[in-house]
């Protein structure tokens, strides 16, 4: 679904992405993992057009992204940090997104508000967002990502800040949508979570993809039984 080739991004003089090549398959869950500062969030933001690449290209379904915005009607995004205008309510925020999408939402059907019930967010919807806890705001964040029945879902550390119940609800939702054909790209530091959710894995280190493939391939290639040990193995190999 997504083909990334030779993607380069610098912040000032600091190189973040140094020629990323990656194919993300349709209908699968791809986890992007790597140490802090490896470029995971930058890679995601470049796919979304939030960051502009200095070189290389991102091709979505055969169409190279070049600053157009219409493709985002098919994309859902859950950012890492959930901070919203303080005095708005979650209900108002959701309404704003619906109104913004109204003109580009041809035939996507009614918004998917299943997570509102699953998270029991109903009573929180009409309170100002500043009064909600960090975890509750993160739930609102998750609701917004799924709201428009996207074909591509991009999640940046989706379960960070969620309690175990909410985290399970979110993972169940990801599984269910994946079975229905959704393509998911997520970043995570929790290897257990990656093991549970992902089909494919891309290991990013210092701005390059050091491994990309199915989870089982990684375990076989490193001759490790668990993902955590396989990744640790990759990192020590790199260091050696």
């Amino acid at each position, binding site marked *: 679904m997504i083909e990334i080739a030779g993607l380069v991004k610098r*912040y000032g003089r600091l190189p973040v992405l140094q020629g990323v090549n990656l194919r993300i398959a349709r209908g699968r869950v791809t986890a992007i993992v790597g140490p802090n500062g490896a470029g995971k969030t930058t890679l995601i*933001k470049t796919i*979304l*057009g*939030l*960051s*502009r690449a200095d070189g290389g290209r991102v091709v979505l379904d055969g169409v190279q992204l070049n600053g157009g*915005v*219409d*493709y*985002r*009607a098919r*994309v859902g*995004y859950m*950012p890492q*940090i*959930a*901070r*919203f*205008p*303080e*005095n*708005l309510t979650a209900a*108002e*925020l959701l309404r*704003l*997104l619906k*109104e*913004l*999408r109204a*003109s*580009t939402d041809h035939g996507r059907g009614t918004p998917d508000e299943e997570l509102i019930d699953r998270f029991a967010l109903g009573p929180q919807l009409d309170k*100002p967002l500043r009064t909600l806890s960090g975890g509750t705001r993160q739930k609102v964040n998750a609701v*917004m990502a799924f709201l428009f029945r996207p074909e591509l879902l991009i999640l940046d550390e989706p379960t960070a800040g969620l309690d175990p119940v909410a985290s399970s609800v979110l993972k169940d939702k990801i599984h269910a949508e994946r079975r229905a054909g959704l393509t998911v790209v997520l970043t995570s530091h929790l290897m257990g979570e990656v093991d549970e959710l992902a089909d494919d894995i891309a290991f990013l280190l210092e701005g390059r993809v050091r491994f990309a493939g199915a989870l089982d391939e990684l375990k076989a290639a490193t001759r490790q039984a668990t993902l955590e040990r396989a990744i640790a193995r990759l990192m020590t190999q790199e260091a050696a």
Partner: protein
Amino acid sequence: MSAMRGGVIARVVRYELRDVIKSRWLLGYALFVLLTTDALLRFGGGGTRALLSLTNVVLLLVPLVSTVFGTMYLYNAREFTELLLAQPVRRDELYAGLYLGLALPLALGFLGGLLVPFAYHGVDDASQWRLLATLALTGVALTCVFVALAFAIALRTEDRARGLGVAIAVWLLFSLLYDGLVLLGVMLLGDYPLERPLIAAMLANPIDLARVLLIMQFDVSALMGYTGAVFEKFFGNGGMAVAITALAAWVAAPVLLGARAFRKRDF
């Protein structure tokens, strides 16, 4: 297509307005203007004198509040901006929405604080109406200028403390340092004809521009001696149109500068 695009701006403005209007800072600002206006009308001895004192409030306070509010708002709205940019929304539209969504409530807060006391104290005559209208319009114009400057600075500066520092420095430059520098220049070059350079210097600073526009309405320009005479002559010869155009350019330039920075920026 264009109707749909305009729709994006209007929607962002509507929700941002709803957010900002409930902010305690905006309420405090409107109340401060209101109490100052009320006090000056009550104890300042007559509407015209109150208006003259209010001129100084407008020239100092409006740019400062717009600068600080504009900078802080943009830094605080960073994640919100990101969220909206992940929607099928063009950057120019979002920028226009964010800008209007802040400049509008700030202008309304100022107008409310200024006009409400006049509504119950009353306006004496036509000349006072003209003063009040000029004051209201220059206040709104300065709000637009300094919110735009604040946005342009905040978009170009990653670090929020530094961005706020730069924005306040720009306010200081325009509201205080600039006049000192111009005065110094006049003293040093006193032997030369300075009419044109002085008018150019006035046009190059939005606060000076607003100040001159206001003072010219008060019939006190005779008190300003040499400079007053220069401006009297300038405004007599179609200078008013030039000054108003210059003020409009002062709104447009930083807005466009900010739009460019917004287009290029990584979020």
